[in-house]
Structures are given as C-alpha cells and as structure tokens.
C-alpha cells in the first residue's frame, strides 16, 4: 500500500493520477495534506501539485469522457468526503482502462459511488438555493449565513448571480469560514473577521430599518399557511432537517 499525500485540490488529485501511472503504482491510498503523520507509514509519496501534469491527465479524460462527466468528477471531489478520493481515483483509472465511455456503467462500483456523491452534492446545493435567508443591511447589501453539510458555495454562484442581479449580496459559509460576495458586477470569494474586537457594538444596528418588519411578516405568513388538521411532523422534518433551522427566519 502506497500513501499519496496531496494538497486537497482537484489539480493535486489529477497530479496524483499522473504519478500513479508514471510509477506504475497498484495499491494506493490518497490522503489530504493536513492529516498525515509520517512516522506511521513506510510507503509515502508527497505529491507536488503540477499544473502541466494535471493538464495532461485532464486532456486524457477529455478524450474519454463528456464535459458533464468531468464536471461531475469535479463536484464529487468538492464533497471532501473521507475516503472517497480513492473512489474517484478508481473511477479515473476505470475511465483510462476502458475502451468506451463508461459514464453510465452504474453496475460498476466506482461509477455508482460517484453518482451517489454527485446526487448528495446536488441535493445540498438545492437546499442552499432554498434555505438561504437574506437579511438587508443598512448599505443595501443582502447578507445570509449558511452551514451546509458539504462545500457547495462554488456551485451556487451562477444561480444567485442570475437571480439577484440588481442587489449586492453575501452568502457566508460559517463552517468553512469563507463566503461569496456579489457587487452588482462580479462575484468573488471573501472571508470575514468575526472576532469580538472587529464586531460592531450592536449587531442589530447593521440591519436596514425595514428588515425586522419583513422578517415578522414572513414568520406570520409561514404560520398562516399551515393547516393544523393535516399536521405531519415526520414529513416536515424530512423536508427541513433540524440542523438547518438556525438560519431559517421562519423557524427561529
């Protein structure tokens, strides 16, 4: 068993694939940078992400896969699920070993697993598209905090940029400490400093004066549309699991 330490980027993963083929490695396990403790394992290779090598692997993939297929691999990698890097490597090796395009070979365990991960990622993205609750700040920026299960912010850019083209907005991932900021022209990744020294004395003061009224109206609306005779808590919780409640205006 050879352990390959890489930096956690998609390019890093593609570079690792290059090394696997160049060194003819058979039993490999991918480990992201911060986890490794060198003393434990004998066979360790540190992968230095190399754009040229990653590019060659990507070019190879393009010859054997559709553009959406490659995008799905990228999304699966973005999920950062422990141990699933090996399934992505397994998938890529299967792509290179096969004669034909194997994207729809759901009987294959790697193809099936990648399909599952992509489905989980899409579900989480869809939840974020639904559960983001903007609050309007004094400077007319709309701010929302989220804590998604997976790192889906990069998948949200297009949707929110198209939809809210005429307002400034921030969607901030508190779990991963970074956010998206749209300034009426472009979106960029930002990080905010929430340390006590930097925080304004009164956080409520940052909101626009109408904000409280609309939050109140929304909560009222949410309660008015409920039909008590049809109460179904199990279904309710399946649709909105409790972990999302703390950022949902109507559930606070």
């Amino acid at each position, binding site marked *: 068993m050879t352990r390959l330490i890489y930096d956690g980027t998609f390019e890093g993963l593609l570079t690792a694939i290059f090394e696997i083929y160049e060194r003819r490695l058979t039993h490999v396990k991918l480990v992201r940078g911060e986890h490794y403790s060198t003393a434990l394992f004998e066979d360790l290779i540190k992968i230095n992400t190399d754009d040229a090598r990653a590019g060659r692997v990507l070019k190879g993939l393009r010859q054997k896969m559709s553009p959406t297929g490659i995008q799905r691999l990228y999304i699966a990698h973005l999920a950062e699920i422990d141990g699933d890097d090996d399934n992505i490597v397994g998938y890529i090796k299967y792509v290179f070993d096969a004669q034909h395009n194997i994207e729809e070979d759901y009987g294959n365990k790697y193809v099936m697993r990648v399909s599952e991960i992509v489905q989980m990622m899409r579900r989480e993205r869809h939840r974020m598209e639904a559960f983001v609750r903007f609050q309007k700040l004094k400077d007319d920026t*709309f701010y929302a905090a989220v804590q998604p299960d997976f790192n889906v912010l990069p998948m949200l850019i297009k949707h929110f940029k198209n939809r809210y083209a005429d307002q400034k907005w921030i969607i901030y991932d508190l779990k991963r400490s970074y956010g998206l900021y749209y300034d009426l022209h472009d979106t960029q990744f930002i990080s905010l400093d929430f340390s006590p020294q930097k925080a304004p004395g009164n956080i409520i003061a940052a909101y626009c004066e109408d904000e409280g009224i609309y939050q109140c109206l929304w909560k009222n609306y949410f309660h008015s549309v409920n039909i008590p005779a049809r109460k179904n808590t199990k279904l309710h919780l399946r649709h909105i699991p409790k972990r999302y409640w703390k950022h949902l205006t109507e559930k606070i």
Partner: protein
Amino acid sequence: MDADRITEKLNILADAAKYDVSCASSGSKRKNENKGLGNASNGICHSYTEDGRCVSLLKILLTNHCIFDCAYCVSRKTNDIKRAAFTVQEVVDLTINFYRRNYIEGLFLSSGIFKDADYTMERLVRIAKKLRTEHNFNGYIHLKSIPGASDELMREAGLYADRLSVNLEMPTEAGLKLLAPDKNRQDMIDPMNFLKKEIIQRTEEKKLFKKAPMFAPAGQSTQVIIGATPENDNQILHTANYFYKNFNLKRVYYSGYVPVLADKRLPALNTTVPMVRENRLYQADWLMRFYGFKVNEIVNNDQPLLDLDIDPKLGWAIRNMQAFPIDINKADLQMILRVPGIGVQSAHKIVSARKFAKLSWDQLKKIGVAINRAKYFIVCKSNEFERRDLTGNNIKQFILAESQSKYLKNTQTQLSIF
C-alpha cells in the same frame, strides 16, 4: 407602512388562500434580462409547513370578500369571518421584499369575486403588470383565472403570468351543482379553452419569431376537491385524464377536503382529511403522466376505487400477474417502468447500465430499486428469484407484512366483508 394593519391582512388573506394546494413554481423559463430581479425555471420549495406541504410562492387572496356562497369554501358570502383586501401596491411590496430575501419563488394570486368576474380579474392582471413592467420582476407569477372573465383580460393575464389556473372545484358537474349552486362549470371551461388555444398559437409564433412575447410559459393547471362529494376514484381520475388530454393541462391537483363548515351537504366537521386517498390519487396521476399507464388500467368500472393499502402500480401488477416476471436485463424501458419498486430514474439507469454488463440484485439495489417489492416481478443475473407460484393476493400480503408503511395503521378500517 402600517405594519400592524399589513400583518393582519396577510394573516387573513394567506389563511383563506391556503386550501389551494398548488405551489408549483416550475415549468417556466423566464430569464433575468437587463439585470432585473429574479428568474423562473426549475422551481424551488423554500420552506415547508408543519403539515409537510411546500412553501414556494407567496400564496394570497387579493380579497376574501366574495359574492358567491359555495358550501366548501371558508370565504363564502354567508360565513361570518373577518374580511380584508390588499391594495395593488401592498401586494407588489410584499412580493418584491419577500423575493429579495430569498423567501419565495414568486407570487400566487387568487381572489374572492367582488362585484363581477371582469372587475376582479382586472385587479389581478394589474398587479402582475406592475410587477413585470415597473419593477422588472422576472420571478414566477401564478394567477387565478376568474371564471367568466373576458377573453381580452385573459389574454393580458397570459402575457404577464407564468401559469394560470381555474379550479374545477368538484370532480363532476353534479357535485358542483350541489355545493356551489351559483357556479357554472361552463364558465370554468371557457377560459381554459381560450387559454389552451392561445397558448398553442403563441407557441407556434414563438417558433417563427424568437422575439415574440412569452405567453403563460408554465401552462395551465386546475384543482379538484376530493372527499367533499361522493365521486369515486374512477370518476375523479377519468375527469383528470379528460382535462389532461383535452386542455393540455400541466397539472391536476387533488385537495383532500378539510372540514371547515357545518353544512348538511358536507362531511361532518370532525371528519378526518382523506390524506391517504389523496396520496394514492397523486400516485395514480404520476403513473398516467410519467409511467405510460392509461387511466383505464388504474381504475375502471370493475375496479372503481384505488386500494388504500398499496400503491396503484403494485395494484396494477398484482392484477396482471400474467405480464411477470420480466428479465431486467432484456425488457423494454416501458415494461421496466411498470415494475413495482422501480422509479423513472432507476429505470433509466438500468437501461444505461445493462449495456455494459448484466445486472445482479446487489447492483439493482445500489441503483435504487426497492428490492422488497420488485423481487416478485423480475429476474436478473442471479440464480435467486421467486420460484413459488404466488397469486397477486399472496404477494400483497407478503409486502404488507414486511412493510413499514406510514399508512399501515389504516388497514383495520379497510377490511371488506366477504
């Protein structure tokens, strides 16, 4: 803005609108052009009520003042309730401010009938027009077509709205006459017919001229209340089928009657909402629209009721055992779709995956097939398969015995006397 007054109006007019079950915000393809606000495409449920229904649109009545006296409706003329009405500007402000905070996909605006049909419809259209033209709003708008409104107003509505709907209310004309003597089914069908023709014509134009304006891109839908009148599932599904076929409807909604009024024509106030039956009707509806089933295969004169214990697809399968078992590695997509426990997505995955290699139970399970139901109806790459010669009824008992169905607690009420 008088926050207290608006809050009170919103409570009254959202409460009155909630029995309209449609909340769909999909099926449109309105883009955000000129950097305006919003778009409408695939539909998003932004929240869910405690009864588990989706909240996608700001669903309100413009007013609950009404000149009609329909027995099943909370807003009926003779009901002693608080009445309210929004101004055009109030609805516009609520919609825009909710939308900007990502609470909703858009607006679903309905209304009690005040004065007459045209007067009411004209107000609804004015709100949609204002949102589109003055606020550059491209979010989803669903307008109720008021029965009896003029063609001219319906045409204008179609230019601003994504979807239009007229509720049939009762599955049959007799049911409607009984509970809503002031209403006339023909008045409901006329605007539906007009819109159908208009949509077809506009779609043709759009093919020729890309710049031609969109006209109700998400089509029309309707709703029938079930359980308020004695129609059986056979009548309800045949009505639905008739409207799907003849009016190109996108959706028919089935709304289990929630007892709101004491009236000797209606089920008593303590009657439970027929939620299981409603669920089975939706399942049957899906079979007609996505699984290639004909309405007669699901319900007919010999089989007028849907089985509440099992889903209608399993019901069809156990009545048609001669069609099974099928070989999952060879059968047509159309036949795979008819296997209980296999959904549309799984069926397509099976057809794609079997080109590479024959599939076994393990792989089918991974793909998402519910093996506990499907195993009685299929064979695959495995020596294990159902060898006993089971009758449809045996299979039903086996499946019910091992199922954790949410509806199983209802079984004792469903015993029939032999």
